[in-house]
């Protein structure tokens, strides 16, 4: 039985009301979604919020899952949309008024410490993870998402383009632009004592 078949069997059982099947399905994906959330949102509490929203979305829409896409793609599509929603909400909550377009325009204008993720919020125990989060936090969400999906979820540019409703070329450009920015950021991070 392949992983995809197992997913579908668990979904069918969960739809039939089996709490065990639901729990097993959640267990299979919670770590992926939680770590995905950590990289995207930067803090454990936001990652938890995102993860709970994602699984609530999965639960509410499970009967819509048709199986023509892989469940893993489906859940990351939900995560993608939830991350964008959450980011929008966080923007509204903070005093930051800059739009993502503006951020993209001045992406090379890096001022140290200018980040929407406070280092205090990072609970990552590993230095390495802290560095990754710090680097990613310098990217606008659209670019962060492309890097995340490409490098951590091994999605193709076509899948990413489809998800973000952009052309494949734009997706490639976004990835390249993001990598260039990350390079600059990592050099700064390296330069830190």
């Amino acid at each position, binding site marked *: 039985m392949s992983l995809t078949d197992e997913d579908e069997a668990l979904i069918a059982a*969960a739809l039939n*009301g089996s*709490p065990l099947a*639901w*729990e097993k399905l*959640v*267990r299979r994906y*919670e*770590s992926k979604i*939680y*770590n995905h959330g*950590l*990289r995207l949102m930067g803090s*454990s509490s936001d990652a*938890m919020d995102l*993860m*709970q929203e994602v*699984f*609530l979305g999965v*639960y509410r829409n499970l009967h819509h899952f048709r199986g023509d896409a892989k469940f893993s793609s489906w859940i990351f599509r939900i995560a993608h949309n939830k991350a964008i929603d959450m980011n929008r909400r966080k923007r509204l909550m903070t005093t930051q008024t800059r739009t993502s377009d503006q951020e993209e325009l001045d992406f090379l204008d890096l001022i140290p410490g200018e980040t929407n993720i406070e280092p205090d919020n990072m609970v*990552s*125990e*590993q230095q*390495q*993870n802290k*560095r*990754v989060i710090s*680097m*990613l936090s310098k990217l606008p969400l659209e670019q962060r998402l492309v*890097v995340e999906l*490409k*490098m*951590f979820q091994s999605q*193709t*540019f*076509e899948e990413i383009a489809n998800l973000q409703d952009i052309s494949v070329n734009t997706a*490639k*450009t976004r*990835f*390249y632009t993001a*990598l*260039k920015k*990350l*390079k600059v950021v*990592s050099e700064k991070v390296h330069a830190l004592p």
Partner: protein
Amino acid sequence: MPCPKTQHILQEYFADDLESLAKEKIESHLLVCEHCSNELESLLLTQNTLTQWKNERTPHWNRGMELFRREHQAPISGFSLWHRLQWAPTVTCFAMMLVLLLNVNFISSQEGFSVSFGSTSDDSSVIAERLVAFQEEQRLAMDALAERVEDRQVSNNIELLQTVLDQNQQTTAENLNRIYVFFEQQRLRDLEDMRIGYQDLVDNDYETIRSLQQLAQFVSYQSPER
């Protein structure tokens, strides 16, 4: 020296499925262009930094289990209610057996209902005593019973019960029919006994009634003079 092709070359370098021709072109350019190859190296180093990520443990959470259980509880309880209802015919049979064994009589007349236990083919005085003792008590009991029946109708329990009975085995239905027929015969016979008992009672008390009539006549005769 900056290269005008850098963006295109590197963007395509990270593409998913590069045609072999395009791949050759990119690789040959990277071999000759120092700027592009240096840039690529630093980007790969950046990627490498990102892949140092170690998955962190998910903090404890309820996994939506409460929500799941809450929303999937209703059909389960309905199922067990159905199971409980399947006992209804058996319970009914048992109750009817008791009715037969105790020889309970339900008498319906214009005055109301009355119920008595044991044979009614005793002498008429016993019947009369029982009638007097039971009439009020049983009327209250029947009222309460009628109320309960109404309550049940409201909650559609009778319909459910009927459905359950319909769905039960043929044998149960046959048994119920036989018991009912037997019960009905018994009831009619006892009713006839009761009628005779009443007649006797009326005959015996004829004199008393006569006296009462005379008294009434006397009273009505006396009153105009007051």
